[in-house]
């Protein structure tokens, strides 16, 4: 359709040019150099930039070299990509990362570290919360994530913050290694995401209990401890964020890792925009996760640290899960019970 209208437009221009040529006093022009002796305008049908841009957002043609990317003559979308990457992304990224750090600091100042409740009869006893395979998957993903996020932020902020400090040569070498790390650590990261999805998905199906947990303000804002199974609504949000964003980052990352294998230049630009936007939001989300799992709440780190948590803590934070566990084993806390195989999840 665009082509037809383009032809029509070209025709109209051709006609008007021809008419102008016919009406103009031609005796003087006939002697001019380069004028076609037949009187026809040699450029009547010729393509020009303006017309082509009216038909398509970019101009492409035919080339005789095998690299078909080079058949693209002009793609002004590069300007838009540049505007996003240089004018918007640093602000979005900066606000996302610094904003969440500010929020967490404010929250910490207001609420302080959420303490263990009054020691009850079960305080001091331990219950296995995450077996070694679960912790392995978590820490593998976490290590990769930290390197990936730092090397990812380096693409945006490195030249603005680090380069003036260490000089261009040192920064170039560092960025080169950061890029290798970003590319290769993506693979264990993707594996870790897949393992965590398989291992934890059944404990993370949203249910009615989650809504009540949210209404009660969780253990974070509210004072009490609403009922929760193995994962409360907040943890489920983190789980689905990691799985969802992780999958999105993996797909867009793979598209960029094998450039032009699935999409063209504009597709590559859009992919990069998506990857960077999700990336900075992902980093902000994980910063909140790190906060609540470490300094934000007393007793929470043990779950991923040693794998065993205080029974008193577990009873107040995940009461229904503890009940399920104790009903299953009928022998109280599973101290010292080793996981049999990676596929068996003792916490179930």
């Amino acid at each position, binding site marked *: 359709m665009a082509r037809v209208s383009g032809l029509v437009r070209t025709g109209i221009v051709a006609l008007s040019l021809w008419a102008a040529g016919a009406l103009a006093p031609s005796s003087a022009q006939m002697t001019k150099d380069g004028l076609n002796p037949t009187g026809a305008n040699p450029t009547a049908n010729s393509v020009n*930039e303006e017309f082509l841009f009216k038909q398509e957002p970019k101009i492409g043609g035919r080339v005789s070299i095998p690299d078909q990317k*080079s058949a693209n003559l*002009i793609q002004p979308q*590069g300007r838009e990509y*540049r505007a996003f990457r240089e004018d918007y992304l640093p602000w979005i990224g900066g606000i996302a990362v610094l904003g969440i750090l500010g929020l967490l600091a404010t929250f910490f100042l207001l609420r302080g570290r959420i303490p263990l409740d009054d020691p009850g009869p079960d305080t001091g006893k331990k219950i296995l919360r995450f077996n070694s395979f679960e912790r392995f998957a978590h820490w593998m993903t976490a290590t990769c994530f930290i390197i990936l996020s730092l090397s990812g932020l380096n693409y945006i902020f490195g030249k603005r913050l680090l380069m003036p400090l260490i000089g261009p040569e040192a920064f170039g070498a560092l960025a080169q290694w950061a*890029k290798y790390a970003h590319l290769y650590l993506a693979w264990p990261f993707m594996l870790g995401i897949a393992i965590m999805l398989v291992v934890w998905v059944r404990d993370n199906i949203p249910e009615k209990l989650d809504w009540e947990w949210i209404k009660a303000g969780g253990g974070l804002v509210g004072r009490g401890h609403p009922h929760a199974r193995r994962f409360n609504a907040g943890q489920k949000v983190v789980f689905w964020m990691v799985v969802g964003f992780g999958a999105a980052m993996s797909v867009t990352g793979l598209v960029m890792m094998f450039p032009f294998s699935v999409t063209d230049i504009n597709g590559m630009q859009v992919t990069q925009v998506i990857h960077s936007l999700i990336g900075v939001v992902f980093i902000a989300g994980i910063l909140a996760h790190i906060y609540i799992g470490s300094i934000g709440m007393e007793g929470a780190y043990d779950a991923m640290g040693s794998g065993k948590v205080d029974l008193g803590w577990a009873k107040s934070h995940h009461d229904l899960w503890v009940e399920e566990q104790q009903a299953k084993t009928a022998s109280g806390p599973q101290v010292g019970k080793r996981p049999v195989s990676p596929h068996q999840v003792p916490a179930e």
Partner: protein
Amino acid sequence: MARMKFLCDADRCIECNACVTACKNEHEVPWGINRRRVVTLNDGKPGERSVSMACMHCTDAPCAAVCPVNCFYTTADAVVLHSKDICIGCGYCFYACPFGAPQYPKVGNFGSRGKMDKCTYCAGGPEADLSTVEYEKYGSNRLAEGKLPLCAEMCSTKALLAGDGEMIAQIYKERVVKRGYGSGAWGWKTAYRETVAI
């Protein structure tokens, strides 16, 4: 100082690809990398035109802006050059470049594509002018010898013009006035935010 530009007069270009060959030979550009290329529009149809395209050495170049390691710099002649020592081969400049100028020695994964290579306007790189190191990394430096880019200098129809922007625009304007037509300076609006008014 001059403000160096390229201008391709599409009404003169006959798609002989001599500019491509000259460029490849002058700088010993390896197979698979094309600093300059000729794109044919409306191939085989009435009104077919060919345009020789390379790096346009844009004003406020997008490649330089998006580079995560700031390896680009602009010379006094407004030629956009880059340092292969700092380049990490991420490929962002190719996404930002409106003219598809940046090229990479390897085509596969983003991580190890090698150092970017592009048209240097026959002006070498950041190394000392006319040094062996400069030649190895960026090709010859004709500008330092007082010569213009070889592609334009040897264009048989003088379709491809190189030199100071105002000067080549003037040459083109005179041509257009004399012959009565012209399809404009391809890419100038995108590269320099200006067109050659006929």
